[in-house]
């Protein structure tokens, strides 16, 4: 909603991620690259929209490691660069990042890690603060959009000054929080740099040279600890400075803490850390020495807590350090204001500002009557058709899924995912299951994920003469994160025409001799292709190719075409419920007497027509049939 390019001095309501993008533009950004991943995606989305106008370069890279290598090369060329990734994306990039800390940079470089406590949109809750210490990268943790923008801008200057990339670590509630942000001056540009070696061995990380650079890295971090970590704006005090009860916190936990203090009127002295690696040990020690008790408020691991405990040993051995290790705060899932209130209650025995037991009693009674509504595949989603065909054609196979919307095919009635693990893992795990068992093995992978990490595992399968079937569900976009282009699409992240890498050609060139491309909306053809693929003695690939339905609908609307839903003919519907039990489109409504289609949900694709044994699903005047009319393929 906010205008990312609004002039200096104006106030815009920005998402935390948009604020990071703006901070980069104010910090003189030249080159940015990333692979989309929730909750980091909107940083790239924002840059992708303005890149051409501002003159910077932005790409959606094939994966996070490539994005890191692209941007670190830009930083080595004296340019300012940015890459951003979700927490698990950092795992992919980490091979490049660990050694980058030794190499250092010339131009300022910022690496954003957006963590996802609560695993809202992720496969785990990993806490990437450990990476900062483990790699040796200074880490800043903003608590909201304004700080996200400031920290990013300042990080570029600091990175360039100390010649080391700076890490910004956010969490979902920082990245996906919208708030007013006061803007500064945009200094980004599309200038070119020069690759100049500061010393002949700067970028040659081998034995003796790496050993030297490791030592140098530690010295840099010591300087940053003294010169940066202990100072404003990265270290701030709030609350009542005379209190002997203290709280140390950072990130969005700080916002929850302030809210809890406001609601209860508790007098506490609050230390908010903005730089959480390296930690300003002396300042923390001074803070502790005036206290009798300190509560550490942080999500996920007791990262600050164990470090504060160690500092307390030297500076204030009598202070009680309370947190996760003492059972005052939970170790899993994201925090809310209530979490902090409960922690304060355990520490101080406070009275709650609202009646939690009464709220819990009332709401649990009501919630028992509310059916769960987990995310499901959208109406018209081509993956639903692929799942339908897979269930019919390969019901007994071991199904190995991957990361993407199609992970939802683990749900009833499809149940064609036994595993969802990591990007590209479907094909790798299928390799192993084929070695370890004698069952049919099917890997399911999306187009963007295939480019990201699927190709090496497919090469592995061909080379080792595996017998397995890979379904590449090519919906022409990176759908789950909000439709970013990928190497297989005709446009790039800046909206320019790009070379679309053809998945079928890639697969054939690897040496797969069974390759079929089908429209998943053609249920018979898809089922037949899968049956044949399973019979093939070797690696077989079926590419189910049809654009994400949300893109199709958006295009139809843009073209001014009316979306006319299908309907169920009550004369023909026998209430056999085959449609619900095998296809389960969210537009189907079970009335108890027959099945209806909710016209507010149906996209009018017509794929379900094939599912009804009594031909009871019929078009209305103006309904399209996406399969027959070749819409979306």
């Amino acid at each position, binding site marked *: 909603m906010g205008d990312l390019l609004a002039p200096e001095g104006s106030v815009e309501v920005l998402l935390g991620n948009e604020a990071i993008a703006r901070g980069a533009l104010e910090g003189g950004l030249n080159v940015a690259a990333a692979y989309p991943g929730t909750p980091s995606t909107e940083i790239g989305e924002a840059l992708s929209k303005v890149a051409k106008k501002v003159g910077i370069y932005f790409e959606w890279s094939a994966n996070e490691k490539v994005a890191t290598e692209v941007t670190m090369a830009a930083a080595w060329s004296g340019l300012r660069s940015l890459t951003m990734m979700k927490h698990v994306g950092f795992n992919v990039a980490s091979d490049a990042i660990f050694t980058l800390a030794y190499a250092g940079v010339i131009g300022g470089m910022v690496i954003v890690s957006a963590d996802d406590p609560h695993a809202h949109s992720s496969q785990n809750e990993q806490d990437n603060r450990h990476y900062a210490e483990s790699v040796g990268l200074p880490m800043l943790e903003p608590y909201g959009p304004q700080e996200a923008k400031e920290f990013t801008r300042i990080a570029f200057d600091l990175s360039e000054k100390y010649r080391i990339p700076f890490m910004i670590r956010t969490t979902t509630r920082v990245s996906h929080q919208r708030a007013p942000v006061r803007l500064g001056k945009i200094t980004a540009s599309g200038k070119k740099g020069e690759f100049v070696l500061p010393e002949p061995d700067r970028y040659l990380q081998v034995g003796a040279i790496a050993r030297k650079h490791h030592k140098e890295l530690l010295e840099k971090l010591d300087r940053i600890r003294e010169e940066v970590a202990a100072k404003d704006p990265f270290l701030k005090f709030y609350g009542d400075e005379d209190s002997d009860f203290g709280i140390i916190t950072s990130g*969005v936990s700080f916002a929850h803490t302030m809210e809890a203090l406001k609601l209860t009127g508790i007098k506490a002295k609050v230390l908010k850390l903005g730089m959480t690696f390296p930690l300003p040990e002396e300042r923390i020690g001074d803070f502790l020495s005036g206290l009798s008790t300190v509560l550490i408020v942080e999500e996920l691991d007791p990262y600050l807590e164990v470090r504060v405990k160690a500092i307390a040993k030297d500076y204030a051995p009598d202070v009680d350090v309370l947190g996760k290790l003492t059972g005052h705060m939970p170790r899993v899932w994201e925090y809310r204001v209530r979490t902090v209130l409960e922690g304060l209650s355990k520490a101080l025995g406070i009275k709650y500002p609202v009646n939690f037991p009464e*709220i819990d009693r009332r709401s649990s009674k009501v919630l028992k009557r509310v059916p*769960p*509504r987990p995310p499901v595949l959208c109406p018209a989603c081509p993956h639903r058709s692929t799942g339908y065909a897979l269930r019919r054609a390969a019901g007994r196979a071991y199904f190995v899924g991957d990361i993407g919307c199609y992970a939802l095919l683990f749900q009833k009635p499809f149940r064609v995912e036994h595993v969802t693990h990591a990007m590209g893992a479907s094909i790798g795990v299928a390799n192993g299951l084929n070695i370890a068992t004698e069952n049919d093995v099917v890997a399911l992978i999306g187009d963007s994920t295939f480019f990201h990490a699927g190709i090496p595992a497919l090469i592995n399968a061909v080379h080792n003469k595996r017998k397995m079937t890979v379904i590449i569900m090519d919906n022409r976009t990176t759908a789950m994160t909000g439709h970013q282009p990928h190497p297989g699409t005709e446009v790039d992240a800046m909206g320019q025409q790009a070379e679309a890498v053809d998945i079928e050609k890639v697969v054939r060139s690897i040496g797969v001799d069974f390759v079929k491309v089908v429209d998943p909306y053609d249920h018979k053809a898809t089922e037949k292709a899968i049956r044949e693929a399973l019979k093939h003695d070797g690696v077989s690939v079926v590419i189910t190719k049809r654009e994400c339905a949300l893109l199709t609908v958006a295009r139809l609307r843009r073209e001014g075409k009316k979306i006319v839903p299908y309907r169920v003919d009550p004369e023909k519907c026998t209430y056999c419920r085959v449609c619900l039990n095998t296809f389960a489109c969210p537009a189907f409504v079970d009335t108890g007497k027959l099945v209806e289609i909710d016209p507010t949900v149906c996209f009018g694709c017509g794929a379900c027509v094939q599912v009804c044994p009594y031909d009871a699903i019929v078009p209305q005047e103006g309904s399209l049939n996406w399969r027959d009319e070749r819409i979306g393929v």
Partner: protein
Amino acid sequence: MELEEFNIIVSGVGGQGILFATNVLAKAALKMGLDLTQSEVHGLSQRYGSIHTELRIGKKVWSPLILEGTLDLLIAIEPLEALRMAPYISERTTVIMNTHIIPPVGAYLERFDVPDLDEILSLMSELNPKKVITLKASELAEKAGDVIATNSVMLGAADGSGALPFPDGLLREALEEASPPRYRDLNLRAFDLGREAVRV
């Protein structure tokens, strides 16, 4: 303006334009010079699952998440998703609810007996909200030209309910500015129908 805090949730099913509606409310709050924080959902969890956004406005708001029991206004574009917000609802909550139920397809597969509107309203009353306003927002959106404008109908209803701390015309103006040109007229028609439907 001196407003300590006003907490709003917009809830519904992914795809109902919940985020857009919340953005319009935030835009109006900003026009009044209020502080605000808004929490929203992106990524996998928005695919036709239950979704809600939280918007807090006031003199100074810290946490982006609303404390249980302190909701002032619930705008529910789908009635089951109104009930799901139960922990937030209390005596201070005004509930504005679209009556069009979208039963989750999973409920059928799990043999879950989905409550009808009467039961939903009776369950809602057990939470003691200040006021419950219902309207046929999906039908009104269809009347305005397209069911995708249901969110704008709900914004109109919120505006007409008098529950919002905004002066007359401000929310409509924010909607007009936030709407893409292609949808501007549709959204405003829908807003007016929603506003009309709840005005006493």
